């Protein structure tokens, strides 16, 4: 492997950080990684998820061979079966009986061949992707305004602006490296103002000068108001609006009607008038403004309108195409942008051309020499699964995504997958909630093996490099697609020798008859060689003859990609979410991410260090709501919506507003029996983007009474189906579970329950304490630990790192160790408390102690404990701990 091959990119969020390997990967082991100092996305920084990448490379649970109906088969047999079925259903029912459901996790090259096969050769536009759940609204918003899906900004604009408005983004946890860049900029220039617009008080608010805790879904009203205020206060860039935009008058008229006054707007949004006034004053006085928005805006039944409400304000004041200004949509996934670029969405054709783009179908057909061009939009994710349930789509190929967990209305998704005649799942993991429904499983390469390109949120192409050979019989997704394409008789068009050839063809298409008509143009790479491809350095598109070094900022020439070349204002009527709370379901459910997990945990779930920050799924409930519902902190709560049910541990906090609750999205049935939040979410979508309103549902809450809470550490995996609730927590050794039992059980029943799992030679160490209603058992053979069970009437989360370490091979137990098994810590070892800093494994108890000892700033804590000095993503929590310590000290 060449020296350059030890640089790659991170597979998590849309920031797209460069990653360095400390040494070459070998023997299927990836050495610890660090941030790539030369990568312009992160300049050497990495967040805790990225820092833990090497830990996620494990043979555990890998899918290594193709399977049909759970039986191992050859690739030959699997692709025979797939191609035969595709032929049969498309001949019998037409090309739309086939669909791809893809992912922002796959690489641009994978995306490109999938899109080409479906839209040009099978003849269906039923190619959609989990990016539909992430930023589809942002795409449509940009297209409506600019005539193209163009992110105008660069990351450096986040550092160079004077006012940063973060809308529906908890970047501190979801895009930690950008958040660090912003924090550093703010520290250097304290005058820079940061405003967070979010119903929840998140870790991102830590650096904010102002937090607008608005009523869920009312974001558009704020920008509607700012538009009309800008007009009345003569903030308009009149020359720009007149010469380079259209539709301003209608948009302004609508804004005046929708949000006539500050008071009316504040009232609609549930905000104090003075906080909105503060934002308005900063907006008025700060030309260098970036509005940074994410899923909180996109995942809405009016997500596209919210995007355009934001863009309208930037157009009106000329705040785009300039340094430190612009409407900046940040994507969630590592290659959501790459998917958009190839056209891997049902309402796109290819290379930023739509079916509706005049001449586009013909252009692409000629370029591909395609025999069966699709001619109109396919079905977007939610509609696609409805069509599957209706029997219209009969073959579904799911690639690198987990719709059983991520799509709304899980019950419907399940019905659809059960109905579908052939479900093909390509994944690198054997057991996912979705693969349980697969008829054919195809082993895919994962990060460290995949080889190709990705595009991050600032339009920057980077290489993700293969560090290890594919495990087992795993193939790259593009290879699997090309194999099937060949069997369908399209071998000539899918005869790629490597990803560089696919990339070159993709680049050539982007430049084909472009002549500046389309924003996406990377024709500079149309003849790229393998050597050049392998040496590719990160670059922002467009990259073409005019811009050979790439393009940092778009629209500096004030020319847009609409037929008129002018940007378009869109009149916006702020709308509330579709399913508002009512008497039966009185709470508003919001969803989001936690700091140390990614999506459905198929990768981060393998890293023990990432499970320590938040080990279990939870529901945030305001203290007053908790009291009125009879719910205590950490207890198990039943959450019902009209669509399903979830069981979650309560986290009572005033970070959520009264009447609102919050649940993270990550936990699947692989990790918890009933904590899938999308089961609660309605299938409401934005009419334009088809993006589900995943951040909004109405729910009711019910506490559990008379249950036993337990923590279990076991040498072997356990069947916990008799538990009301269980959650598996990844640990370095053995298996760890948090459980809830439905009824009162005497100690003997617990011993019997677990005794059958133990070897006959095992004996119990036991502890009972009526004071805290605790029962603790350790099953031990001679001097080896097999199992530890802690049970209590009170909810608790044991600190079990030491316990699981006792499951390590060759770990023998002393008499005092045996006693310590029932305490959870050896007597002479410090109990760290809950881990806050995942990089250095520093816990709450250590931090509190250091704060009491005089470390009153994150910097001081970093000096004593090292916490926060690597990825820095725990700094907001460190500040909270410092503040709460000061309060108690007073």
């Amino acid at each position, binding site marked *: 492997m060449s020296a350059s091959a030890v640089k790659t990119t991170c597979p998590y969020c849309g920031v797209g950080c460069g990653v360095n390997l400390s040494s070459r990967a070998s023997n299927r082991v990836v050495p610890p990684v660090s941030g790539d100092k030369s990568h312009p996305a992160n300049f050497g920084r990495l967040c805790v998820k990225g820092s833990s990448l090497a830990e996620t490379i494990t043979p555990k649970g890998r899918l290594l061979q193709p399977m049909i109906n759970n039986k191992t088969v050859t690739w030959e047999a699997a692709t025979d079966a797939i191609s035969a079925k595709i032929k049969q259903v498309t001949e019998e029912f037409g090309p739309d009986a086939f669909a791809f459901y893809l992912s922002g996790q796959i690489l641009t090259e994978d995306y490109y061949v999938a899109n080409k096969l479906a839209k040009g050769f099978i003849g269906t536009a039923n190619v959609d992707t989990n990016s539909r759940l992430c930023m589809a609204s942002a795409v449509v918003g940009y297209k409506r305004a600019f005539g193209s899906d163009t992110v105008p900004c660069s990351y450096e604009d986040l550092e160079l602006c004077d006012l940063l408005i973060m809308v529906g983004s908890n970047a501190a946890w979801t895009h930690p490296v950008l958040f660090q860049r912003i924090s550093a900029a703010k520290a250097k220039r304290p005058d820079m103002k940061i405003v967070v617009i979010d119903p929840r008080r998140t870790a991102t608010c830590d650096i904010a000068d102002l937090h607008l805790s608005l009523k869920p879904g009312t974001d558009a009203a704020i920008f509607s108001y700012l538009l009309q205020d800008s007009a009345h206060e003569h903030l308009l860039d009149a020359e720009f609006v007149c010469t380079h935009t259209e539709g301003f008058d209608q948009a302004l008229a609508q804004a005046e009607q929708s949000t006539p006054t500050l008071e009316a707007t504040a009232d609609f949004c549930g905000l104090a008038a003075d906080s909105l006034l503060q934002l308005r004053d900063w907006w008025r006085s700060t030309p260098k403004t970036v509005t940074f928005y994410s899923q909180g805006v996109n995942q809405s039944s009016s997500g596209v309108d919210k995007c355009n409400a934001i863009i309208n304000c930037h157009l009106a004041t000329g705040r785009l195409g300039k340094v430190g200004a612009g409407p900046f949509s940040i994507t969630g996934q590592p290659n959501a942008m790459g998917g958009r670029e190839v056209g891997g969405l049902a309402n796109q054709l290819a290379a930023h051309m739509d079916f509706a783009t005049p001449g586009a179908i013909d252009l692409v057909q000629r370029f591909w020499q395609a025999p069966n061009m699709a001619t109109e939009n396919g079905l977007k994710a939610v509609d696609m699964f409805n069509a599957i349930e209706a029997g219209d789509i009969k073959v579904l190929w799911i690639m690198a995504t987990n719709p059983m967990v991520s799509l709304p209305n899980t019950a419907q998704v399940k019905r659809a997958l059960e109905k579908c005649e052939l479900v093909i799942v390509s994944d690198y993991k054997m057991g996912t909630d979705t693969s349980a429904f697969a008829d054919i499983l195809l082993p895919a390469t994962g990060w460290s093996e995949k080889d190709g390109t990705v595009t991050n949120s600032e339009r920057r192409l980077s290489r993700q490099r293969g560090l290890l050979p594919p495990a087992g019989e795993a193939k790259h997704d593009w290879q699997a697609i090309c194999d099937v394409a060949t069997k369908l008789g399209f071998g000539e068009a899918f005869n790629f020798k490597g990803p560089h050839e696919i990339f070159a063809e993709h680049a050539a298409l982007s430049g084909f008859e472009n002549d500046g008509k389309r924003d996406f143009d990377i024709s500079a790479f149309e003849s790229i060689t393998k050597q050049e491809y392998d040496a590719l350095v990160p670059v922002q598109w467009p990259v073409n003859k005019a811009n050979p070094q790439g393009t940092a900022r778009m629209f500096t020439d004030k020319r847009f990609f609409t037929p008129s070349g002018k940007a378009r204002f869109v009149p916006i009527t702020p709308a509330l979410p579709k399913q508002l709370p009512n008497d039966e379901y009185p709470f508003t459910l919001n969803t989001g991410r936690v700091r140390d997990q990614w999506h459905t945990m198929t990768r981060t779930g393998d890293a023990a260090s990432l499970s320590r920050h938040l080990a279990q799924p939870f529901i945030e409930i305001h203290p007053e709501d908790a009291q009125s519902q009879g719910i205590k902190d950490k207890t198990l709560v039943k959450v019902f919506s009209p669509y399903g049910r979830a069981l979650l541990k309560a986290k009572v906090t005033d970070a959520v507003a009264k009447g609102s609750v919050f649940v993270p999205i990550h936990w699947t049935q692989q990790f918890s029996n009933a904590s899938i939040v999308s089961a609660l979410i309605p299938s409401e979508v934005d009419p334009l983007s088809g993006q589900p309103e995943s951040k909004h549902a109405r729910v009711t809450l019910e506490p559990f009474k008379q249950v036993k809470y337990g923590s279990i550490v076991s040498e072997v995996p356990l069947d916990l189906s008799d538990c009301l609730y269980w959650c598996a927590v990844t640990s370095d050794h053995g298996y760890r579970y948090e459980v809830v039992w439905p009824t009162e059980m005497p100690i003997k029943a617990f011993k019997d329950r677990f005794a059958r799992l133990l070897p006959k030679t095992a004996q119990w160490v*036991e502890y009972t*304490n*009526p*004071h805290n209603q605790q029962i603790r058992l350790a099953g031990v053979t001679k001097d080896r630990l097999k199992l530890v069970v802690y049970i209590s009437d009170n909810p608790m989360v044991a600190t079990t790192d030491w316990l699981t370490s006792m499951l390590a091979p060759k770990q023998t137990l002393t008499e005092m160790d045996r*006693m310590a098994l029932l305490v959870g810590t050896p007597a002479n070892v410090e109990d760290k408390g809950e881990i806050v800093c995942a990089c250095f494994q520093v816990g709450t108890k250590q931090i509190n102690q250091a704060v009491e000892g005089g470390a009153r700033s994150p910097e001081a804590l970093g000096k004593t404990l090292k916490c926060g000095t690597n990825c820095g993503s725990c700094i907001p929590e460190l500040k909270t701990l410092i503040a709460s310590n000061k309060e108690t000290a007073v």
Partner: protein
Amino acid sequence: MVSLVAVESLPRLIIIGGGMAGSRLAHDLMATEAGYQVTLISEEAQVGYNRIMLSALLAKEIDAKDMPLVDIQGMREKGLEVVAGDAAANIDTHRRLVVLASGRELQYDKLVFATGSRASILPIDGSKASNVIGFRNWQDTQVLSELPSTAHVSVIGGGLLGLEAAVGLAKKGHPVTVYHRSGWILNRQLDEAAAKMLQAQLEKYGVTFRLGQTPEKFKCNAVGKVIAILGKDHIQPADLVVMAAGITPEIELAKAAGITTNKAIIVDAQLRTSHDDVYAIGECCEFESQTFGLVAPIWDQLKVLLKTLGKTPSVFTIEAVPTKLKVSGVNVFSVGRIVADEEDQEICYTDVATDHYRKLLINGDQLVGAILYGNVADGSWYFQLIQNKTNVSSMLDTLIFGEAYCPQDVA
């Protein structure tokens, strides 16, 4: 005839009993130069030995030279008069006279009863036989030591003393059977779980147990020696029977002298009896309806008595006393309440495989009882918590795991 031993004009103090309490009192009086002419009267020839060590002596873990509790010879040199092997037979409190079995009369100004106790002999048919003995003194130990190791010994009573005797005998190689009236041994110190662990350990040493049983009859041979024990449904051959079913305070002498007694000689908090200048300490005294069999409260009594004699005000109070079984290789610790009251909470820890057991009794915010088996290192800490009436409410989660797991500043 009055023997005037007194030199100079120091008041004369006579201690009746050369056991642990009496000899230690004599020692302390001599050491503190309390201003008395002290005489120590001992029925036994051996004076001032450590009775607690008898089982170790029997088991031959120690020998005679390890036995002294105090240095009698050294005390003699300082002026203590020791009368050994001559029991006090009579007391005339009016004339302040002690009459010895030999007929010798001793005048006193202050008199201290430290007559101790003897083994209770249960009223079982045959219990008067010559091979039914107690395990109380050096003489008993002598008898047991001389027994051929094949001889079968039955011990009546599975309390501290009985078990110590049983283990001593078993270690010597005797087949030993322990009869115990309760369902588990050491029932006044241990709960059933701990007792069962202890029993299993003692069984490994070769001791056999008959629990929940009292012998119905000792079958004697023609020469009046016990040859077997008859139980409800069994016959147990026996060459010797050790009575360890409790102790009876030795109070006959006091009673005869007209001193008020109940179970034992009644004393007040200054260890004074019903008669002026007459005191009692140790196993022969009774305070607040309690008698005493363990050494710790007796040492407390001793301190109080020294002060009383020195005319310094002092008050004896009864404290919880931890029990430790003096059997090498076996660790038992128990203090305070054994059986939970209705309001008590029991915290338990059991590790069967390593013979490690703990039970704590909590009442309100206080520790009121502790039983430890196997690992007793935390025993003294628990004892301290009980004695100090420490509020343990903040430690309840980890209290049973010992001092190492509890916040240091609390204890």
